[in-house]
Each structure stands twice: as C-alpha cells, then as structure tokens.
C-alpha cells in the first residue's frame, strides 16, 4: 500500500517541478499572486479612497502624488485600479467556483449514471452553449434587476436591516448568476468525459477486482487522473471569467458606477483617450497582463500535468 501512496505524492511533485521549469508559467503565476495580494490588501494599501473626488485635480496625468493620475472627477486612478482588481478576482473566483461545482455534480451524474439522464444533461449543455452569451446576460440583467431591486427594498423597509439596502452586491449576484449560467457547461462535459474514459481503464478494473471500496477507487485513481484537465480548464476559466466580467461592465451591466471595475474604467477611458490616455492605459494594461498571465499559467499547467511532449 505504501507504494501507491508514494506514487500519489511524486505525481504532484513531478508536476510542480515541471511547472517551475516553465519560465512563462512562473511569470504568470507571480503576476496572479501579486493581483491576489493587492486585491486582498486593497483597502489598506490604497493611497486614496476610491470614491472621493478632488474637483481641483481632474484628469491629472500620472505624478508623484497620484501614481496613475486622476480621472475626470478627480478620483485617484491607482486606488480605483486596485479596487477593480478586487472586483475582477472576486467575480472570477466565485463564478468559476460555482460553475465548477455545478459542472462537477452534473458531469459526474451524467458520467456515472449514463442513459437518459446523461442524454438530458448533455442536451442541456448543448442548448446553453448555443445561446449568444452576451445577449443572454444582458437580457437577464435588464429583466431581473428591477423586480429584485424592488423586493430588496421592500425587505429593507420592512426590516430596516442595512444588508438589504446596500444593493451593490445585487449587481454582483446578478452578474455571478448570469455568468455561471453560461460557464458551467464546459466543466460538466469535461468531467463527464474524464469519468467515462477513466471508468473503464485497466487499473480501475483491476482495483475493483482487488475488492477496493468505491470511495477509495474514486479518490485514488479517478480524481487524481481526472484532475489534470480540470485544473487546466479552471485556470483558463478564471481568465475567461475575468475578461467576460470586464466586457459586461464595459457594456454597463453588472458592476455599475460608481464602483470601479476595469471594464467600466476602460469604457470611460475610451471616450477621452486622446486627451487623457492614462485613463485608458491603466486598466487596459492591467487587464491585458492578467489575461496573458492566466494563459501562461494555463499552458504551463497543461504541459506540467500532461507530459506527452518531448523535446526534439
């Protein structure tokens, strides 16, 4: 039995070693870690309050006082970019997490149970993946927000509980909801595919023949072998979720003014980029780098976990 345990550990260590060797992936990882740190530490490290306006210093270019300059209302751009990082990461993590959870559950059911249920779930993924996602999200947002808003307000007036009044999180919830609705199918299909292919592999049959309990089989063989592609998908998914969120806030859905998000900062910046290019450059560059970082990381993870390539 110890032999099997060793195998587990060295698999992970092996993958990690390969990942570390990939310079691009490491760079990507570092940038992402930086983003996470900045996002978490946001309120403490921001030089200014991201909402406060200094009417005397509007559209100021980057300087020692304001490292990334100020916007048309006199707000510090750096502080807003930092807050935007929080928004981006929260949305990306939560959305990917929920989609993943839904995907795993549905994919596992489809893979294990098979038959009609499998066909139905696959049909559902088909349909969901066919709808133009942007359109669906816009429609969801414009339709559901007013009644939800109303309901929340009634709750507030009834209970006087401030939680219901601060409706910024309603934006988040709607964005999350709409995005998970679009993003869960790929995870479900992936998980289902993995389960189907692994279930019939020789070592699983052997383990079953040996009489190992199902729980152990799942944990030791299926999860470990299936998890590779899932990790890669999650990494790509996080990047995609981030970009999607910026697209939405660019269009004016989801995170709304005055809450900063890289997307709505880009949209503002686009209007004045000829007079004040720093307003566009800051969020666009940060977002672009984040996307690239996730790509590098994803590719690196793929290489590390699926070592089929050999150098010539």
């Amino acid at each position, binding site marked *: 039995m110890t032999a099997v345990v060793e195998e587990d550990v060295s698999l992970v260590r092996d993958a990690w070693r390969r990942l570390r060797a990939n310079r691009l992936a490491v760079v990507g990882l570092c940038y992402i870690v930086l983003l996470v740190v900045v996002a978490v530490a946001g309120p403490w490290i921001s030089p200014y309050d991201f909402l406060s306006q200094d009417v005397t210093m509007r559209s100021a270019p980057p300087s020692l006082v304001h490292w990334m300059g100020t916007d048309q209302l006199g707000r510090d751009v750096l502080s807003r970019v930092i807050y935007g990082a929080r928004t981006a990461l929260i949305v990306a993590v939560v959305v990917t997490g929920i989609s993943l959870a839904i995907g795993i559950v549905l994919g596992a059911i489809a893979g294990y149970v098979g038959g009609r249920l499998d066909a139905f779930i696959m049909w559902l993924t088909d349909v969901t993946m066919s709808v133009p996602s942007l359109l669906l999200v816009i429609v969801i947002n414009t339709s559901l927000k007013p*009644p939800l808003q109303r309901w929340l307000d009634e709750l507030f007036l009834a209970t006087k509980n401030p939680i219901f009044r601060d409706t910024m999180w309603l934006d988040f919830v709607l964005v999350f909801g709409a995005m998970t609705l679009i993003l869960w199918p790929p995870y479900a299909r992936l998980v289902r595919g993995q389960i189907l292919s692994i279930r019939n592999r020789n070592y699983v049959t052997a383990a079953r023949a040996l009489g190992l309990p199902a729980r152990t089989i799942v944990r030791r063989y299926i999860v470990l072998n299936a998890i590779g592609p899932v990790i890669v998908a999650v990494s790509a998914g996080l990047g995609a979720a981030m970009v999607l969120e910026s*697209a939405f806030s660019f269009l004016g859905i989801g995170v709304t003014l005055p809450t900063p998000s890289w997307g709505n900062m880009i949209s503002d910046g686009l209007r004045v980029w000829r007079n004040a290019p720093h307003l566009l450059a800051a969020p666009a560059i940060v977002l672009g780098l984040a996307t690239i970082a996730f790509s590098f990381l994803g590719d690196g993870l793929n290489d590390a976990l699926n070592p089929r390539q050999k150098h010539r």
Partner: protein
Amino acid sequence: MLLFVARRVLVWIPSLLLILFVVYALAFYGAGDPIKLIFLKAPGDVAYNEARIEAVREAAGLDRPFIAQFASYVGNLLQGDWGNSLITGQPVWRTIAAAAPVSGQLGLATIILTTLIAIPLGVIAALNQNGKLDYITLGAALAVGAIPPYVVGPILMVSLILLLPPGSIPYGWGGIFDVRVILPLLVLCMAPVSIIVRQTRAAVIEVMNDDFIRTARAKGLPERIVVLRHMMRPVLTPVVTQLGIIMISLVNGAIFVELVFGLPGLGRLAVQSTVDNDYPVILAVTLIGAALVMLSNLVVDLAYPLLDPRAHAARSDR
C-alpha cells in the same frame, strides 16, 4: 448519415423552444411594459396620457396573459411571421434580413482569414518548438488574444483617421469587398487567431512525436512530405472542433466591432434592441444566434470523422 443529421436537427426544436421560452419569460416579466417604457422615455414636454397608452397596448395585444402571448408568438413564428418591432412598427424579419447578411459575410470572412493566418503560424511555431520563432509567435498570439477587442477597435480606428490622407474614414459598411472592412476583420480575427495558433501548435507538437511520424521519418521521407501528408489531418481536427468556440467568440466580438466600426449587422441590432426593450427583435436575434451555433456544431460533428477516422467510433462519447 442522413438519419444522424435528421436526428440532430430534430433535437433543435426543443432546444430552440427552450431558449425562446426563457428569453421571452425574462423579457416579459422583468423588463417591464415596452409601451409604457416608450412613453416614459419621452422627454419632459411630451404629454402622458393613460388612455392613449392603454389603447396602444391593446392594439399590440400586450394585455393578454403570458402563456397566451407566448403561444401566439410561437404560432406566428411557425407561419413565418416574426412580429413587428415595438419601436418602429416594421416587420422584424425585414430588419433581420437586412442585418444578417452583413454579420454572415463578416463571420465567414473571419473564419477564412483565421484559418489562412493561424494554421501556418501554428505549424511554424510547432516546428520550431522552444526556439526563437516559437516564442515570438506564441507571445504575439497571447498578447493579441489578451487585449479586449473593444479597446483595440476604437484606438486603431481613430489613429487611422488621423494618420491617413483625407478622404479615408474606415467606417461604415460598403459590402464585404470594400476596403473599409479590413480594420473590423482584423479586430474580429484577433481572438480566434490567438486560440487557433496555440491549438494548432499544441496539436502539431503532440503528433510530431507520434509513432507513425517517426516511422515516416525513418523511412527517409523528406520533412515536407512528412508534414503535409501525415500531420495535416490530425492538426485540422482540433481546429475544426474549436469552430464552435470561434463561432461563440465571433458572435460576442461582433457586438463590439459592429458598434465601433458602424457595421449594420446583427450584433448592433442586438444591442440596440436590448436598450430599447424591443422584445420581438431581441427574441429573433437570440434565436438566430443560437441556431447558427447549433448549425456550426452540426457541421463540426459531420466533419470530424472525415478528418480523423479514429474518432468515428468515439463520436457518441463527446
């Protein structure tokens, strides 16, 4: 084969119906009364007349219960009547018929361009794996894919306007062979090219070390023939499967590109109708988008076994 296609097309019906139902319900219950909205949006000096609003609503059949309205919508759809726009009163199919060819041509051109650009690049990168050419190509592909299309579009556009000689605004639609289409196509291709370059590269790398390639090389065949004859098929496979994803990214990217470059396509129509809460148009555009994606998935599924005979058996296990 025919049975396969027929079965797939049959499945479209409940799929589209489900999509229709969801979007219709959302618009109906959430977005609010479009007629009232038209009046409410009118500027302050326009009179507000309850009786008139009611009269218009009744005329548009908006005072019936949800199921009745949905049923009559579907019924009309089956007879070819897509309804009339709530804003302009024009038949929806006409608006769609004007916008669809624009988006269609753009989409087709993008796919062709992407294939022509991305596959060779991906192959070159793979053949030079970990060499300078590889890093440059990969880096460029990643960078290009990371910039959101809605950033590049306006910047490129305005730069061009200011730098080029007079008489040259790359704005508006003049047909697919008009020079003004270059910039929007470029921007539309960015994301798909980025994906396909990387996919092709990965596929070629994977295949390059496969047994049958080594056999071919051992036989002494020239490299070029090795590449062309043996690698092309497995290389094209992931590309074709990516087609579905490309379609989706096209549909989303089209929205931004059409808005910025003034192309009167479906993307622009979609945004305009959501802003106006013009639900017959919203429904129609969603349906078409979904149908397009389903169609491309079908094409992919049909093409797959042609490209990779090994996949034939595994078709049901997608």
